[in-house]
């Protein structure tokens, strides 16, 4: 995998150019600013550098995904941003206020869900929790606007019927939603969510994601969300900060990150079997590999260096007596980007069947259908291969 360096360089150069206004010197709309954040746990030989000189800025109303494998430093970074962990070095400014200088002023503007369902009192009802946390934040639940906000949250999170039920009698998903409702019980401009969908079933996770997206759009709140669930980040976030070994290895919009890893890789299926000399030509000129025979069809993958190579390759296929069945453009998704950035393929190669804890490694996706890859199918090939490959996203089903 060679993508790691290029992605990092790309994101750095993009931020240097000020693309998206996300890094660099910041703007008037910068809500969160992190500078040189460093945190080490332990000392001597046992020390662990959890966060290593992390820098980034977040604009108002952005939903940022903090992505990384276990131990990447996501939670420590979030807790250090919130002042719950004392950093060794660096500074964090939220709404222009330094967290270490005036934590209370920061806490007026920030809410956080750090332990999922454990953030609330299980022996209180949903509504009692809302009232408690609103008061804790200095909001009187007797006031009409606060009460209306709570009613709206209960409605939005589908908790109305459970409002007067003690939390310990709710399902895990409902508990998690209660926790989110309590985090939002008082109006704040920034919300930190650490693994908000951890342990949820698919349906609850999808509900929660939809709610987060809706909240971000409707209330223009800035959300910093950590997860190692790529589907969540992909569904909810505008921007992704990938952390690995305590460092930021990429920081860009989701589209930009995926674009960096977008290669012109195609899966070609023909009816019948190509002649050996034609197969050799495809291999030598276009790097065709992954040859598979499925029934009467033969399939191969090819990663092309230039756009015009696509037409040349198609000409070679057309010249054969085997009719073309399909051409599929294999596109990377966030999982591919993540695996590349965090250099997980070295681990996957020793995992036996090419599967990682996160999924299927990037290279193997060209050999077998990945569960998470976006695939594009086409029955015909036109002038612009990218333009003629309607996307058939599996993400919606996940």
């Amino acid at each position, binding site marked *: 995998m060679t993508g790691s360096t290029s992605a990092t360089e790309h994101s750095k150069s993009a931020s240097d150019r000020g693309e998206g206004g996300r890094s660099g010197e910041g703007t008037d709309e910068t809500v969160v600013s992190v500078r040189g954040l460093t*945190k080490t*746990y332990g000392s001597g030989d046992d020390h662990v550098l*959890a966060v290593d000189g992390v820098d980034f800025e977040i604009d108002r109303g952005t939903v940022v995904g903090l992505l990384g494998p276990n131990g990447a430093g996501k939670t*420590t970074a979030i*807790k250090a941003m*919130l*002042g*719950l*962990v*004392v950093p060794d070095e660096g500074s964090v400014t939220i709404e222009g206020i330094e967290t270490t200088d005036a*934590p*209370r*002023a920061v*806490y*007026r503007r*920030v*809410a*956080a869900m*750090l*332990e999922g369902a*454990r*953030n*609330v*009192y*299980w*022996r*209180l009802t949903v509504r*009692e929790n809302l*009232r*408690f*946390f609103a*008061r*804790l*934040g*200095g*909001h*009187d639940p007797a006031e009409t606007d606060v009460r209306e906000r709570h009613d709206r949250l209960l409605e939005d999170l589908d908790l109305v019927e459970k409002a007067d039920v*003690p939390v310990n009698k709710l399902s895990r998903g409902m508990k998690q939603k209660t926790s989110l409702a309590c985090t939002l019980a008082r109006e704040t401009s920034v919300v930190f969510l650490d693994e908000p969908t951890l342990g949820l079933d698919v349906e609850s996770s999808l509900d929660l994601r939809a709610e987060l997206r809706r909240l971000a759009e409707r209330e223009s709140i800035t959300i910093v969300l950590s997860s190692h669930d790529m589907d969540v980040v992909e569904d909810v976030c505008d921007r992704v900060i990938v952390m690995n070994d305590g460092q930021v290895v990429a920081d860009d919009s989701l589209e930009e990150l995926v674009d960096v890893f977008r290669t012109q890789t195609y899966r070609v299926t023909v009816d019948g079997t190509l002649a050996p000399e034609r197969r050799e030509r495809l291999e030598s000129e276009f790097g065709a590999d992954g040859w598979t025979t499925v029934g009467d069809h033969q399939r191969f993958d090819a990663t092309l260096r230039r756009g015009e190579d696509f037409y040349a390759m198609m000409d070679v296929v057309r010249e054969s007596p085997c009719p073309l069945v399909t051409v599929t453009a294999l596109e990377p998704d966030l999982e591919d980007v993540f695996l590349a950035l965090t250099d997980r393929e070295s681990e996957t190669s020793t995992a036996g069947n090419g599967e990682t804890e996160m999924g299927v490694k990037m290279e193997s996706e060209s050999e077998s259908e990945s569960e998470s890859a976006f695939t594009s199918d086409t029955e015909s090939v036109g002038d612009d291969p990218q333009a003629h490959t309607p996307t058939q996203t599996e993400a919606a089903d996940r």
Partner: protein
Amino acid sequence: MTATELSLLTRAVLEKKVILWRRYWINTAFGFLGAYLFFAMIFFGGQAVAGAAITDTLDGIIVGFFLFSVAISAYHSTSGQVTREAQWGTLEQLYMSPSGMGTLMAVKTAVNICTSIAGGLVLLAMMLVTTDQTLSIDAVTVVPLVVVTTLSVVGLGFVFAGFALLYKRIENVFQLLQFGLIALIATPVDGREWLKALPLSQGSSMLQEAMTEGVRLWEFPAVELGILVANGLCYLAVGYLTFHLLLRRARKLGVMGHY
């Protein structure tokens, strides 16, 4: 922090407490009943063993038990609440209160002392009915004495709360300290001035005088009252400072919310 915010915080803490008392009323009732039965065991057991002789010291036992029930409740509320919040996963949420952890802890402590005294007074009434004894219960004297005496125990509670944040499971130490509280309440300070520096002991002695001999608050020597107030405030301040240092240490080690 504004008065409104302080009022909201107090209502939040108090409402939660009352809701839990009512929702788990059997637990609440058995808490009282357990304390009462413990006293009854001492009283009736003592009568069986010592006969009428126990009557001579009964007033002292009742006052001591009343103070013990208030002190243990205040101590547990302070030290136990931090441990429990860390266990539940809510401690970091409380830390992020815009009022500040210090204010929140102070409010919780004040509410805990008030509820502990209220519970202690109910228990006191039950003890007096059971033993058919009478004591001088002048609220203007008893309540301030109990509040100031309890401050030293709250200070100890803060110290143990801080250690619980760092070392987590230290409940067994809490249990041991319960016996320590009995010893401190029973320690006679008359003639041994240095013992007045211990938590609870000076207050216990003055409370005995107030309730058994009817001494009013303003009838105590100013020096004795001064020692009591200084004792309470010193323990509270040292305990609170220690808690803050240990809390900062826990934040530095990244273990504040761990359990």
